[in-house]
């Protein structure tokens, strides 16, 4: 009994996401507007929300350090996009070189802000507000208010194409399923392997039945999504990128020493310092890394829109921050997971997508999103209070 409760508590957001999906699906079917799970829609859902997942991952690291947010990410996306457009379209620079320059630029932008935040201890809110204005301004200057397009095909293909690709249309469904089966097989093997290793070293292991149910559920979800993708254009390249980002940062935050420092700093910075950890470095890393992911998000965005516009990335910072908090990050820092932030991003995506299919007015969509964000944070605070008084 206690275990089920614990399980529910740990996966509240995932359950809420599934509930929201089911609710939308029922509403959509009742209104005869198609299906949330239509293959094309799943492809859309992924490509529309890829940038939120990437930015939310970076934002989570910042929030972990003590509820610090980065307001500049939307403008950062615009600036990196502008530079990408300038180089790739106007100056016809090699696509790989453009990507490299953009990533370096992102890191530099992040580091420039991180320096003031971490070593001068200027409140992140102020530094990134300044960054938000500055980056946006420079983006407008570079583009002189105009939109640059189209990008060379070899550039957009890197982020905005589908595997196994256009000419192999006939085998797409089969390949998708094969890839899904391979992923499942790898997950099962890893599970078995780590279990064997734990046993060998004499550590505690989870119950077999419990692990089996978990693995079966995850595999079923993977197979379902890939099957649907196979029915449409195939596996989006951006999905692979997203998986790589989420898995890498999940590992970083959960299993590495500097990752642990992020949580410790957000939990109690003084205690962390007195444990011999240089929290300035931790904070510097979090914001510099945010810059890197801003660049990644910018590359994904220019490829999808096939253009660089000075107004790009508007309000992206709010999507990223919202995703983290909906995904269970604490507004005071020290609590939150990359997986949670990713789920939060998908949750917001499903809200947008579901309401759009239902033909709900844009303004209502905003209102609903705002209320959901508030509800998520209130839920977090209230459940914490209850835990303390118990």
């Amino acid at each position, binding site marked *: 009994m206690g275990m089920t409760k614990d399980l529910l508590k740990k996966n509240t957001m995932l359950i809420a996401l599934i509930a929201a999906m089911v609710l939308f699906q029922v509403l959509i079917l009742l209104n005869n507007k198609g299906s949330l799970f239509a293959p094309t829609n799943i492809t859309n859902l992924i490509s529309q929300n890829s940038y939120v997942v990437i930015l939310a991952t970076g934002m989570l690291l910042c929030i972990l350090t003590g509820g610090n947010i980065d307001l500049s990410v939307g403008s950062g996306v615009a600036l990196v996009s502008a530079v990408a457009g300038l180089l790739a379209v106007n100056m016809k620079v090699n696509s790989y070189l453009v990507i490299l320059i953009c990533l370096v630029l992102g890191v530099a932008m992040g580091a420039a802000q991180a320096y003031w935040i971490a070593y001068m201890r200027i409140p992140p809110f102020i530094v990134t507000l300044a960054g938000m204005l500055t980056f946006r301004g420079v983006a407008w200057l570079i583009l002189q208010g105009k939109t640059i397009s189209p990008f060379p095909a070899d550039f957009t293909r890197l982020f905005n194409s589908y595997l196994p690709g256009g000419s192999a249309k006939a085998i797409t469904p089969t390949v998708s399923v094969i890839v899904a089966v391979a992923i499942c097989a790898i997950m099962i093997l890893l599970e078995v392997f780590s279990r064997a290793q734990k046993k060998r070293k004499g550590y505690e292991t989870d119950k077999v039945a419990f692990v089996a149910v978990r693995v079966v559920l995850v595999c079923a979800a993977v197979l379902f999504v890939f099957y649907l993708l196979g029915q449409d254009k195939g596996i989006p390249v951006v999905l692979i990128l997203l998986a790589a980002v989420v898995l890498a940062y999940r590992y970083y935050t959960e299993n*590495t020493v500097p990752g642990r420092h992020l949580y410790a700093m957000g939990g109690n910075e003084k205690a962390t310092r007195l444990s011999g950890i240089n929290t300035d470095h931790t904070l510097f890393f979090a914001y510099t890394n945010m810059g890197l992911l801003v660049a990644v998000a910018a590359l994904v965005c220019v490829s999808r829109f096939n253009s660089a516009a000075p107004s790009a990335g508007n309000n992206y910072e709010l999507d990223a921050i919202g995703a983290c908090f909906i995904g269970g990050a604490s507004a005071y820092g020290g609590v939150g997971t990359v997986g949670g932030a990713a789920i939060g991003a998908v949750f917001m995506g499903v809200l947008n997508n579901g309401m759009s299919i239902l033909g709900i007015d844009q303004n209502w969509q905003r209102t609903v999103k705002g209320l959901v964000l508030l509800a998520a944070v209130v839920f977090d605070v209230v459940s914490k209070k209850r835990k303390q008084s118990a």
Partner: protein
Amino acid sequence: MNNSLLRMEGIVKEFPGVRALDDVNLEVTEGEIHALVGENGAGKSTLMNVLSGLFPYGDYQGKIIYDGEECRFSNIKDSEKKGIVIIHQELALIPHMTVAENMFLGNERGVAARIDWDETHKKADELMKAVGLNESSRSLIKDISVGKQQMVEIAKALAKNVRLLILDEPTASLNEDDSQKLLALLLEFKSQGITSILISHKLSEVEQVADHITILRDGSTIETLTKDKDEISESRIVKGMVGREIGDRFPKRDSRVGDVSLEVKNWTVYHPLYEGRKVCDNVNIKIHYGEVVGVSGLMGSGRTELAMSIFGRSYGTGISGELYINGKSVNLRSVKEAIDNKVAYVTEDRKGNGLILSNPFRVNTTLASLGKVSNRGAIDRDLERKVSNEYRDKLRVKCTGIEQDVGLLSGGNQQKVLLSKWMFAEPDVLLLDEPTRGIDVGAKYEIYSIINELVAQNKSILMISSEMPEILGMCDRIYVMYEGRVISELQKGEASQEIIMSKILQSAKGA
């Protein structure tokens, strides 16, 4: 004649895992100064928090009868309406506001839509005169001394038409002169019919002004002494507070003192904010392997600052002097270097500086030595769990498991978590700052046993403590500090509470 203003009957207050107050009774007569004494963690502050409504009715058991009627306060405002005002040890003033603004905070003159500043300042000046404070009501709080700030707090209480003034350790951070002024003011209030409850560790002050003294020990009332009826002396009060012979509160240990492990020479540290203020002044101390060295002194005597400045310069600026570890001169520029040189500092403020309350036991235990449970930066979670379980068993930490957040544990168990963390770092020298602050007697005994085990493993312990029995019972050698200087070094046999206090008093006179 015996006009009772306040009666607290059978007060019981429980925190998760601890019974902080157990059937406490307190009776305060109108117009008296009633002292409340007891060791740290005896329940004095908790009792006053119950009285002031900080713990609302229903959160505790028992009755509060004030001015003849039973009171059920649900917050501080309720008790203030009745004229009960509490002044906490940590002053609740806002540094960037003026004296007058602070004095009438939450009690503003005029109406809500328009504050009457003329009235505010006039009243503030009057009240300041009443407490003998010679300062402009337009000064900012941050610009006046701590002693004056304390007086502002009292004036603020007067502004609320106080009938019962509760002062929690009002003189803890004051110098002798300011302390005397404050006590004189309490006597002055007494003549005006204001009743005071004084919580203090300074027994000489209690002896000086109190009409009744109620002694608390381990959350229970032990006795109430009456002036002119009972013998009132420091030793009499101490007997009530401690309640038993000192000997059996400390586990026995065979002392086997070895070579010098850590030595500090001519150590001077300046305050990080107040330029030119020496917090440690030319301190010379040394610790041997297998030895427990005590550091005694009043609050603010520079003990914590000394330990922290040694621990990788985590406190102070302009640090000068030499530091030797195993006879070799070292320079510990950061906490990390200190840890690498096998020095550990266990903070007095476990919640603020020691633990990450929102993280589980496991994370807290390994935080200072993540290198030992990781391989090239990747944490081995399984090893981490194993280690945490070992320490949990070794120190007998009462928790539901290593994944329980330490914020939910009792004070004694939190202290053990803090010790686990630093024991796992495997230092040679442990600087323990108030290792038993605010924890119950049983847990204290366990902490002492852990200290003895560490010494048996040939570690060096520097123990800072404000509890003299603990210093006397545990230490092989004692340094006494006063205003940043080491004023005396005593061997176990020659030290006693009286000797330590008289050394401090002598220095106070000399200064």
